[in-house]
């Protein structure tokens, strides 16, 4: 599919040879407008969770990119995602956050749509339209593709985009770390009531790169580590398992997804956690034993922050949360945060975690507050004429990644950079921007789905890849 492109993005602004990226991509209005077409209109975006819409008629108003969408379940229990805009004259057909309804009715001229998107009510249809309006052509705009992956709902406007599982590729096992229950069952998580929504004054790519695997910014969180807000009352890193594990950055160059992981040595049991709360500690110890038993060797792997291209952030272990960085112009992001718990967890555990989530993440989160301050002023300081001449450096750890990484007999899928001794790398951030640049330059998904090309598959075998 061809479309007129505003040529604002210049190849070379993301330079994978030097690891340098131009500040323009964060602050430039023309590039931002192009991003809406090139990136957000063509990617798979996280919309919500099925536990938010359990019954027919349930809906949750969400966002895809800048645009308001309706996530709903129709009378036949099928899930849909529609553009929240009347086909007649554009008015939002729903201005509530969530609820249950048999129809979405526009308050401007009264057009009404069923929960499957069909246009079912047109005032004066017989009289003013003389019965000639073809209602079947004027239903709510529906996403081209939708996927319910273990309860998480993803959607894309692009019919030519690969199906979601193909879009995920081998990153799937890492997304699973966020969605499996604490005792290792494939699904069974649910979303806590209350989706946090707030505005931050920076480009969406600042939080996106941070969650992709910025392991360098612990100094941001120094104050949290000093006072200790973890469930065990010690530092933010309340999970002792991390002291014993290899720490890895993992990315998938063809896809643009990346994450950090911890891998315990073979036969190393997981140390106990949350010891300030005996009930919670016992629960997690029991779950962890079960998770290790079910997972076999893969149970040695736990997740740390990760990002599914372009703007869905995962925090798999603790706190368990999914965030989406919605673009609101180049200089602003609207963050939506979902918090997950096991549906079957006892009330004391859910409540313990709920309170931990509130003080860790979000605008009231002692940790997230300092991230946002840095994103705010990094962005602000990058808007000036002089500042924009000077690129950022993302060269940390270039050349030290490997394609086939194993630890104590366990193969870790993806291109891996071991930061256990290195302390940090920008391997994952380079991956995000490499893929972003590909999206900005590609005319179609033919160019983006490089894994489908035999030449690409060959280049992945047995080589240490640069960048």
């Amino acid at each position, binding site marked *: 599919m061809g479309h007129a492109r505003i040529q604002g993005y210049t190849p070379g602004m993301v330079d994978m040879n030097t690891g340098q990226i131009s500040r323009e991509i964060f602050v430039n209005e023309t590039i931002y407008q192009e991003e809406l077409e090139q990136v957000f209109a063509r990617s798979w975006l996280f919309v919500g969770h099925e536990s938010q819409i359990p019954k027919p008629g349930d809906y949750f108003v969400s966002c895809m990119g800048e645009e308001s969408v309706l996530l709903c379940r129709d009378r036949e229990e099928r899930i849909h995602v529609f553009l929240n805009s009347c086909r007649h004259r554009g008015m939002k057909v729903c201005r509530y956050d969530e609820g249950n*309804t*048999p*129809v979405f*009715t526009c*308050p401007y001229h*009264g057009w*009404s749509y069923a929960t499957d998107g069909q246009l*079912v*009510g047109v*005032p*004066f249809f017989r009289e003013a339209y003389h019965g000639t309006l073809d209602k079947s052509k004027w239903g709510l705009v529906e996403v081209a593709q939708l996927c319910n992956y273990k309860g998480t709902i993803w959607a894309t406007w692009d019919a030519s985009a690969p199906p979601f599982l193909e879009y995920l590729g081998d990153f799937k096992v890492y997304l699973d770390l966020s969605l499996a229950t604490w005792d290792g069952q494939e699904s069974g998580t649910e979303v806590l009531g209350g989706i946090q929504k707030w505005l931050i004054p920076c480009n969406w790519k600042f939080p996106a790169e941070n969650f992709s695997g910025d392991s360098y910014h612990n100094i941001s969180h120094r104050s949290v580590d000093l006072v200790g807000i973890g469930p065990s009352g010690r530092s933010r890193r309340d999970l002792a398992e991390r002291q014993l594990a290899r720490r890895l950055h993992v990315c998938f160059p063809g896809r643009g997804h990346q994450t950090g992981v911890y891998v315990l040595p073979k036969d190393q049991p997981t140390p106990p956690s949350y010891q300030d709360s005996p009930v919670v500690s016992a629960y997690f110890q029991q779950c962890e034993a079960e998770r290790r038993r079910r997972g076999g060797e893969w149970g040695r792997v736990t997740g740390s922050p990760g990002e599914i291209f372009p703007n869905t952030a995962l925090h798999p272990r603790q706190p368990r949360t999914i965030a989406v960085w919605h673009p609101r112009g180049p200089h602003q992001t609207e963050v939506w945060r979902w918090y997950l718990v096991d549906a079957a967890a006892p009330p004391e555990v859910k409540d313990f975690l709920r309170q931990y989530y509130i003080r860790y993440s979000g605008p009231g989160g002692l940790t997230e507050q300092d991230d946002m301050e840095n994103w705010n002023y990094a962005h602000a300081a990058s808007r000036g004429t002089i500042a924009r001449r000077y690129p950022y450096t993302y060269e940390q750890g270039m050349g030290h990644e490997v394609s086939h990484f194993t630890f104590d007999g366990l193969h870790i899928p993806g291109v891996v950079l071991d930061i256990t001794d290195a302390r940090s790398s920008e391997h994952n951030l380079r991956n995000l921007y490499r893929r972003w640049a590909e999206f900005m330059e590609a005319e179609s998904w033919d160019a983006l789905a490089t894994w489908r090309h035999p030449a690409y598959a060959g280049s992945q075998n047995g080589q240490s890849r640069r960048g």
Partner: protein
Amino acid sequence: MSEMVNLMHLTPGSTIGLANGATAEVVSNPLDGVWVYARYLSCPSDVALVGTEEMIFAQDIVEVRATP
């Protein structure tokens, strides 16, 4: 002459009078204040509609004749 009807208050089983002289019984109310789903009880301008059900628009409802 009756006052304007607020559709939010129409309950299933109510009988409504329409602008074209028809009467209908409310079957369900989506509570959007704009439409109700009703079954025609009488329709002088088109007797074929009697017994059929469709969405009735607020501006076409002139009065509430009876409530259950």
